[in-house]
């Protein structure tokens, strides 16, 4: 198997606080890799470093063998790495259709075109419509994003990342805050992501983690506490003590 995403001795501190402490991690092509850990373990910070939302303090990040440690996030997206957010980060006054079309225009490198019309890129508009119906957003494609039910916004959050055709997708708690009756829809979408896309998932919902992930890394106080297959992690007494023990 080839390693698609790798970190070497990654560190990030906020003052004296080590949010990410010496994390070396290898993620294989097509993996379903879950990142778990108690609150404040530094999971979101780690995702922020990977996606380029925050700069690293030291260490390196490699995407498909190339050092991307210092690249700005919009360049990482072009190279196939993008993320979703735990709390929706959407364009409030855009419709889902505009949002997804925008991401596709950028993906195809025509986002800077001053003189063409958005509707002139008809194939992309068709693709956007197809993506929206796949993500069960077709019926609301013309609603303002900030007026959508929360579950739909979560779906759009994932659809928007997916529109960039990432090879590595970082999902930060995709089901967080979704009401129970909309939850299965989000989980279904997550588990149906195409197998060619490598997915790194942060999640508190253990059912989702154990049904979805092929490998799990446990993060405690910014450092990797344990790593292994789902069975190994489930059987690890240390993990049970620091994390699962609390949850059970």
């Amino acid at each position, binding site marked *: 198997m080839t390693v698609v995403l790798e970190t070497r001795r990654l560190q990030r501190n906020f003052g004296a606080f080590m949010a990410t402490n010496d994390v070396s991690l290898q993620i294989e092509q097509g993996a379903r890799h879950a990142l778990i850990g108690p609150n404040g373990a530094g999971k979101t910070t780690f995702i922020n470093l990977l996606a380029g939302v925050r700069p690293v303090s030291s260490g390196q990040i490699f995407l498909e063998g190339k050092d991307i440690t210092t690249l700005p996030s919009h360049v990482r997206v072009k190279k196939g790495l993008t993320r979703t957010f735990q709390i929706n*980060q959407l364009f409030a006054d855009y419709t889902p259709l505009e949002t997804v079309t925008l991401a596709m225009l950028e993906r195809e490198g025509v986002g800077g075109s001053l*003189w063409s019309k958005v509707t002139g890129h008809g194939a992309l508009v068709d693709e956007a419509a197809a993506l929206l119906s796949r993500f069960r957003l077709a019926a609301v494609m013309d609603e303002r994003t900030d007026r959508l039910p929360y579950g739909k916004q979560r779906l759009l959050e994932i659809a928007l990342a997916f529109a960039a055709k990432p090879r590595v997708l970082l999902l930060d708690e995709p089901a967080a805050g979704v009401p129970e009756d909309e939850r299965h829809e989000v989980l279904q979408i997550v588990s149906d992501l195409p197998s060619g896309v490598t997915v790194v998932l942060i999640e508190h919902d253990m059912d989702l983690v154990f049904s979805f992930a092929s490998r799990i890394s446990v993060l405690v106080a910014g450092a990797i506490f344990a790593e292994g297959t789902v069975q190994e992690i489930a059987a690890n007494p240390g993990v049970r003590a620091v994390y699962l023990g609390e949850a059970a």
Partner: protein
Amino acid sequence: MSLMAQGAIRPAAEDQAEQARARRLLQRRSAIRFFEVIIWIAAVVAIFLLPSKMLILTEIAILALFAVSLDLVLGFAGIVSLGHTAFFGVGAYAAGLFARHVVAEPVIGLIVAGAVAGVLGFATSFLILRGSDLTRLMTTLGIALMLAEIANQMAWLTGGADGLSGFSLDPIVGLFPFDLWGRNGYVYCLAVLFISTMIARRIAFSPFGLSLKAIKSNPTRAALVGIPARRRLIITYTIAAIMAGFAGALLTQTTSFVSPDVLAFHRSADVLLILVIGGTGYLYGGIFGAVGFTLLKDWLSVVTPQYWMFWIGLLLVVLVLVGRERLAHWIEYMPQRLSRLREGGR
């Protein structure tokens, strides 16, 4: 069974219907709206119906162009500027100096003035990329104030506090002289306003324009769909500076005079006020605002010559309290409602 596979075997007709709907919805976004047609027809009809009002209409057209250029920066790119008159003033001086020392034909002068303002916009755009809204306010204000002082000090070139005069413009493209009633001047300004607004409109509905409002709405996410925000903002700021330069040049050319007032702070403030009145982010706010502001100012300065500034200030306070969105929304909603009906009836 995977959902993606379901997507592939979904009835093609259903997918096609969604795609056709998506295309129609995006087309509706950029459709020409009713009020757009009305405002341009009214502007043209005014040439014939209001021959005695050419000077104030010229003033409105120039102010509208200036406000449309600020809307690109403020309403689309989300950059608050307190010094937009830097580009207006530089365009005004460039047009005056060019007419006096090089060529007195207005259209060439207009293009030169736009180019000079554009170069300044490009150069200063790197300063406004840094920092927050407050830093941007101070930076833009500072640049405009510096330019005003430079124009004041370089009296050998700009005429200093006396202003720049002693030049007259040739007929427009060699055919239409600036007449005493200001009719040709108005037609000329209106033409420049129309062309510039149409260019701005084209940009607003391009992929570039779509990405601008995304940067404004959520810069973090914009970066994560791959938008290079810095480059987009630099280009927008430069284009807006060119248009503001055009507006300044029009003022110079229609009055054959450049007052140091073109770089004064109140011009930057006025143009912001115009956008507060007319609304931001749909380009025509600048035009509606310029009409409203100029007529109001004109009327108030006749009714209460000493206190008209007070009433303008009061209006501003009311607009901010009531929320301009609520007042201006009927304009944005009306044509959408019509097309929604059509959409429902499909």
